[in-house]
């Protein structure tokens, strides 16, 4: 199998991996670069659980080829905040009980972060729109929207 070398700036650090032309970004992130915080849901762009920030925009990493990320910046949930140093969005999700099974959370926070990066005072509708590519089957979205709105209102960024 022919392989290619890619270099990806993952959460601020350049990382290298050998990939095939067919390999997707999520496969490389999870299986070769240890970024298992990126969740593999539907694998076809329906659920948003694999969302990452790719050159400043939230995208599905299952619908991006690893080779397309060569020389580019990728930010995952861990690049937004860690257990030791959580981002205000992560704290707010915990405070609002916006996490139940947690599978969608990584993608939700990535989409929310991409929104707040471009629009620090989004309306409720803008928040709903921004996370409309992320499915949650537990919470009914209300607490997630509250959690994001709270961060925006309190200017906790």
């Amino acid at each position, binding site marked *: *199998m*022919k392989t*290619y070398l890619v270099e990806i700036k993952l959460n601020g650090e350049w990382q290298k991996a050998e990939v*095939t*032309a*067919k390999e*997707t970004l999520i496969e490389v992130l999870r299986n070769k670069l240890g970024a298992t915080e990126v969740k593999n849901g539907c*694998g*076809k*762009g*329906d659920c*948003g659980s694999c*969302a990452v920030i*790719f050159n400043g*925009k*939230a*995208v*599905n990493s*299952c*619908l*991006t*080829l690893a*080779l*397309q990320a*060569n020389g580019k910046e990728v930010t995952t949930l861990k690049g937004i905040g860690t257990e030791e140093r959580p981002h205000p969005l992560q704290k707010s999700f915990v405070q609002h009980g916006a996490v139940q099974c947690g599978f969608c959370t990584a993608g939700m926070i990535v*989409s929310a972060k991409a929104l707040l990066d471009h629009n620090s005072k989004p309306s409720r509708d803008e928040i709903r*729109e*921004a996370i*409309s*590519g*992320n499915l949650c089957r537990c919470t009914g979205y209300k607490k997630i929207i509250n959690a994001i709105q709270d961060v925006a209102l309190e200017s906790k960024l």
Partner: protein
Amino acid sequence: MNEIDYITPKNLEEVFRAVEKKKRKIKFIAGCTNVIPYMRGEAISPELLIDLSSLENLNYIREENGIIAIGALTTISKLTASEIIRNQSPILFSAASLLGNPLTRNRATIGGNLADASPAADMAPPLLALEAFVHTKRGEGEGREISLDKFFLGPNKTVLAEDEIITHITFSKPKDSARGIYIKLGLRNSMAISVVSIALMIEMEGKVCQKARVALGAVSPTPIRVYRLEKNLEGKEIDQEIIQEYSVILKEEISPISDIRASAEYRKLATSVLFKRAIQEVLKGEKT
């Protein structure tokens, strides 16, 4: 499993040099939002992926001398952020806002949406109603300019040769008096593939319709213009009776299929309802 090669040309010369050298099954890729699921499902088995996403000079939205030009590599989210698109072609703007979801809109390109040629492609009905042209390039020769209504041949089939790429899309800026609307009926609001979609543009003088363009998605093997309906509308005073009559005629102009999303019968009924809704909204004078 076959070997797949990948290249990412920096300019058109490199694209065509790669095409010439490799006598293999090539696939042009950009946003990959459809190509990756196709490859995974083995619906396609390319041997060489030519990634066009680095062709920065095909990523633009311009307005010049009344012509709006959009580079093929322009993402759908760039369309939704464009003042030119929002102000000059609101039907394209609303179709772009309804395509997929924010995550896919950040990757999917306008050229890819057309080249993929899904009968439900969101970019097609508004661009058909705007009488857009697809500009292509193949090798060193002169490019082609193809009227969009001659571009689609069937589901996932276009007039493009295997080694021909879309460079840009153009259409004339609609007249100030033109009004339009795009309505998409999906099974949900986000991430929906159209069950039926309609783009309508009309120019009225008083109560008389001067010009009408009606395009539909997901009700035929390709996105279509409904010429007979357009002709019928032009030169007429549009009243409720005519709207009702034409909404029935419209059902004869389409040939929907039954699939996972809806039955053919439902699609016919829904098309008729969407047409009525679209024309009534437009006559109300709302610029959508």
